[in-house]
């Protein structure tokens, strides 16, 4: 479990493979696809967020995508769209945006269809050739 303290400001892309708690400020993109991200009561995020599970006690501005669950606790705030099969919003939490709670089965089907479509090369193109617009994995960039 990693903790980003109150006084830390990160601008850029944050990715990793450990559970993370943020009490500071992050702007940019957070990518913890296999792990739990907790935005603490002092945390302020202006970012696109991708994680397995997201718990919000602080403020998030930006879209949140979780493969398992998004949990906005009392006094937590999300201003952006949420995509997750499970979403819990506590009484007293703030939320503005849309929620996409596609069922897990539907998501899998869609992913499979997307993978099939990606595997079928357009005429004159080799399979597995990287697409220009596909995001490439990037490391953590701290500070700016």
């Amino acid at each position, binding site marked *: 479990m990693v903790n980003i303290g109150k006084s830390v400001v990160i601008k850029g892309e944050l990715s990793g493979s450990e559970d993370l708690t943020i009490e500071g400020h992050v702007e940019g993109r957070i990518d913890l696809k296999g792990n739990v991200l907790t935005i603490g009561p002092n945390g302020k995020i202006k970012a696109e967020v991708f994680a397995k599970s997201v718990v919000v006690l602080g403020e998030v501005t930006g879209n949140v995508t979780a493969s398992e669950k998004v949990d906005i606790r009392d006094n937590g705030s999300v201003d952006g769209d949420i995509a997750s099969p*499970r979403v*819990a*919003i506590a009484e007293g939490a703030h939320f*503005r945006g*849309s*929620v996409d*709670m*596609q*069922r897990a089965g539907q998501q899998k089907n869609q992913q499979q269809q997307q993978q099939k479509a990606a595997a079928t090369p357009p005429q004159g193109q080799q399979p597995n050739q990287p697409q220009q617009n596909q995001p490439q994995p990037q490391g953590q960039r701290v500070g700016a």
Partner: protein
Amino acid sequence: MAETTRSLTDLFGILGSRRDSDAAPAADASVANVAEAAYPTKALHKFIASLQGADNPLLLDLGPVVGSNVTFFGEQLGCRLRVEDIAKDIDRHVKDGTLDQLPEFFAKRFTQAPGTVDGILCWDVLDYLERPAAQALGTALSRLLRPDGCLLGFFSTADHREAIYTKYVVVDGNALRYRTYPASRPRQRSLLNGDIIKLFKDLRVTDSFLMKSKLREMLFRKPAPRT
């Protein structure tokens, strides 16, 4: 028209007595607060059933954000849910003294493309609007619905003068809790059945229930174009 007439025969499908909430006794005030009474609903489960065949339907909720409702509709429908709190819009216009601008505001209020929304939870927001604003909102919502899309509306038949809104908290497909909170204005004149139908003239009434809570629950559906 014949279908509308037939559906109105259900209008006085009055339900049984108010349902008490969970039997667990309230040990203290905070617990008692949570254990509010639940009221039956006849239209909600029909609304849900009408959307269950759709793949990842888009649902528009015109009430305030209620976390448990988000969870409920997500689990029931696997839907995309957009909350557009109309009560906040009304409050803002009351505060700014611009209620006369509400019809124009509602005509441009929604960003969704016409014919893309599968279901609309209108709740009772139309009760708080004067006729021109209610008509503008009704027309805007009718335009948003896709063919075969469904709208759930509540209309009070009681004469309320208290300035309160009601949050409808879903207990299950057959029951709602009514949770009130302060409003900037009371409900306007109760709408008659014919007035309500005129607000959604592009939609067809499929079900209408007058509940013992003095709430008229109505389900509307947008007719599919004839092939």
